[in-house]
């Protein structure tokens, strides 16, 4: 049992925190969120140079060889100060499945390009039903010679509009059990028939609609095996849920620290507002909420990093963190009052992050189902 981070991990945290704070101040966050692209190519390059893009890839792919646990820590700190962009989509949603399931040829081709920041990727899973269950995958891929022809519409595909490749989850067979006929394809986003449009939204994310109209993909672009894609998708979504939880913890910590500073300085009725019992109860609840989630995340990350099955632990982390981050921002706003309700202030960035974090990769209610199943219910 050891609840301490290693020196290297603490250094990693510190360097991310300092870098993001300096290079991606909240003024830039707002600018990026308002821009169409949603990220800064300069920062992207720099982060690649720092070795972050290939954080968990081995040397042979020009990676930095960190563990999955470190990746979780990394995104927690990315959430603390917020840095919008296709990092999550590229590293977590795409880098991990390619690393873990693609054949060597594909890995050698793609991973180094990720490490060097040359390409951006994302994964297209959800469709009209907006959930992560195999029966909702209607997009089809039909074999024609050495190619597959993909047809269908994907929704809520973050960062597709700036991606070079899209990992597309498509149905390749109609089977009694819907997860047995799903395959994962790597599609070049420039392929004719791929049409991408931004979905107008209120968070800092850039969700896209991606239409596939007779899109031709070579069979060699299958990641993993034919009809065996759901296992990869499921594994990726689980890991994504966990990393997203870490990012949310970081955000919740950021929110609390922001509010804390204010509560110590802001005077009302001749006293700092942080001296009022009602306000103190709010802060204790924030602390308790955040710290109660943090170890859930670390526990799930530790198991996952060891290659153990952590479905229940991840579901617990995601279910509770989404709820708590939302609550922490509600309390944070309550501390700040009107000033926090403006676009100019930074609070709303966290409030938005709590929304997008909570609803992606399965919200509280859908995680409860997984937990109940794991308890034999």
């Amino acid at each position, binding site marked *: 049992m050891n609840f301490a981070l290693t020196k290297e991990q603490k250094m990693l945290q510190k360097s991310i925190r300092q870098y993001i704070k300096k290079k991606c101040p909240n003024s830039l966050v707002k600018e990026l969120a308002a821009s169409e692209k949603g990220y800064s190519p300069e920062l992207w390059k720099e982060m690649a140079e720092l070795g972050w893009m290939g954080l968990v890839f081995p040397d042979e792919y020009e990676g930095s060889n960190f563990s999955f646990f470190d990746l979780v820590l990394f995104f927690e700190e990315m959430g603390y100060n917020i840095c919008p962009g296709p990092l999550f989509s590229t590293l977590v949603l795409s880098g991990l499945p390619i690393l873990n399931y693609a054949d060597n040829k594909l890995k050698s081709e793609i991973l180094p390009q990720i490490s060097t920041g040359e390409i951006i990727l994302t994964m297209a899973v959800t469709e009209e039903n907006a959930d992560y269950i195999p029966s909702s995958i209607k997009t089809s891929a039909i074999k024609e010679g050495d190619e597959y022809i993909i047809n269908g519409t994907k929704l809520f595909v973050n960062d597709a509009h700036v991606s070079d490749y899209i990992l597309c989850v498509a149905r390749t067979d109609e089977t009694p059990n819907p997860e047995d006929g799903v395959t994962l394809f790597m599609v070049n986003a420039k392929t004719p028939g791929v049409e991408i449009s931004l979905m107008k939204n209120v968070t800092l994310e850039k969700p896209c609609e991606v239409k596939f109209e007779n899109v031709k993909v070579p069979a060699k672009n299958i990641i993993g095996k034919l009809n065996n894609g759901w296992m990869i998708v499921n594994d990726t979504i689980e890991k994504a849920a966990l990393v997203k939880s870490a990012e949310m913890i970081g955000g919740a910590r950021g929110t609390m620290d922001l509010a804390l500073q204010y509560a110590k300085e802001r005077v009302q009725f001749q006293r700092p507002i942080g001296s009022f019992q009602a306000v103190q109860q709010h802060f204790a609840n924030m602390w308790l909420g955040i710290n109660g989630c943090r170890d859930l995340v670390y526990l799930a990350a530790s198991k996952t990093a060891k290659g153990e099955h952590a479905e229940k632990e991840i579901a617990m982390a995601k279910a509770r963190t989404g709820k708590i981050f939302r609550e922490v921002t509600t309390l944070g706003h309550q501390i700040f009052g009107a000033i926090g309700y403006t676009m100019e202030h930074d609070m709303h960035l966290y*409030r938005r992050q709590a929304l997008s974090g909570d609803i992606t990769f399965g919200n509280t209610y859908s995680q409860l189902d997984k937990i109940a199943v794991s308890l034999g219910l």
Partner: protein
Amino acid sequence: MDFEFTEEELAFREEVENFARSEMPREIEEKAYLWPGGYGTLPIFEKEFEEFCRNFFLKLGKKGWLSLGWPEKYGGVNSIVKQAIVDDVLSYHRAPCAHAATSIVAPTLMRFGSDEMNNIWMPGIINGTTSFWLGYSEPDVGSDLGSVKTTAVKDGSEYVVNGQKIWSSGAHVTDYCWLLAKTDDSSKHKGMSLFIVDNNTPGVTIKPITNIAGIDSFNEVFFDDVRVPEKNLVGEKNNGFYYVMSALEHERIVIGFGTFRRILDELTQYVKEKKKAVGNTREYEEARNIIALMAIEVEVLKSFFWRTVWMMDNGHKANIEASALKLFCSELGVSLSNSAVDILGLYGQIDKGTKWTQFGGRAGIGYLDSISGPIGAGASEIQRVLIATRGLGLPRG
């Protein structure tokens, strides 16, 4: 005890409903977010809707619906119930039905204003031509109105105003400021007075602030040597704080009760349609429970609302009930938005006006706007302290 409207009230409700259907443009009804309990998505504070609102208030004035709760002398029929019916029905259609002029300024003037003053100001409020914003809050004044710093210094037959207001909802789309300013430095609460100040007076600078929902709903307003005629002093000098407190009850019954019913109806409808499309899933079962719980809370708000209205209509003191109404309304706005987000999932982030929009794009905006309820117009913590101390007689801390 009787929870039913009279025949006459029912007929009136019907009349207002018909009016709303014919006069409220469908397009604006859809476009306005108007999250229940929030302050940042009210059409009356939005530039985009300014012209529409000004015209709509004229129509309401013509109908006599802005003054229903007031005595005949002021164009009314002495029925706060009818005024509340207008609030309920119109807000369901996301139509404007009240503003600071009707909920704060007029009740204060009628009670404390001189006949001369009322002759000048009341007609415009009654017929819907005159609009106000509330100049209370200042940069260092949150919940503690006692520490207002803006000064009004007598100079001949005028007062000279200097200072800064902030969080001034609608200052940029209204005509006059209902200004709370310091007129006597020697006392805290007893040294303040209320003034009416024309937005167009030289020295008044209004700078909109964009709120979390992306809407310019409130403002910073600067007063630099603004000269206000003495006759614009409301009631007695140095009595302003008392006037402000006295009017709170009137402000607090304007809750747009219909907006709560509307959101509940729309969310229920969404769940029904989703079930038709996807079937009887676990999500559906959960959504069903969430909606049942919401429905109870909306029904509770309904009771708080009509009981408070009835009390005021029947001369009972209702300041605790009004505090409770405000508190409950604000908190319910937050929990409704949480419910909406929980039910909508990934669709909860999508804004209005797209082909993927669900539930009018209100979930995400409601989630952002709703947090204004518990912080605005007397924060929840403070309303709770009021209920505990004034309502239940607990000693002040």
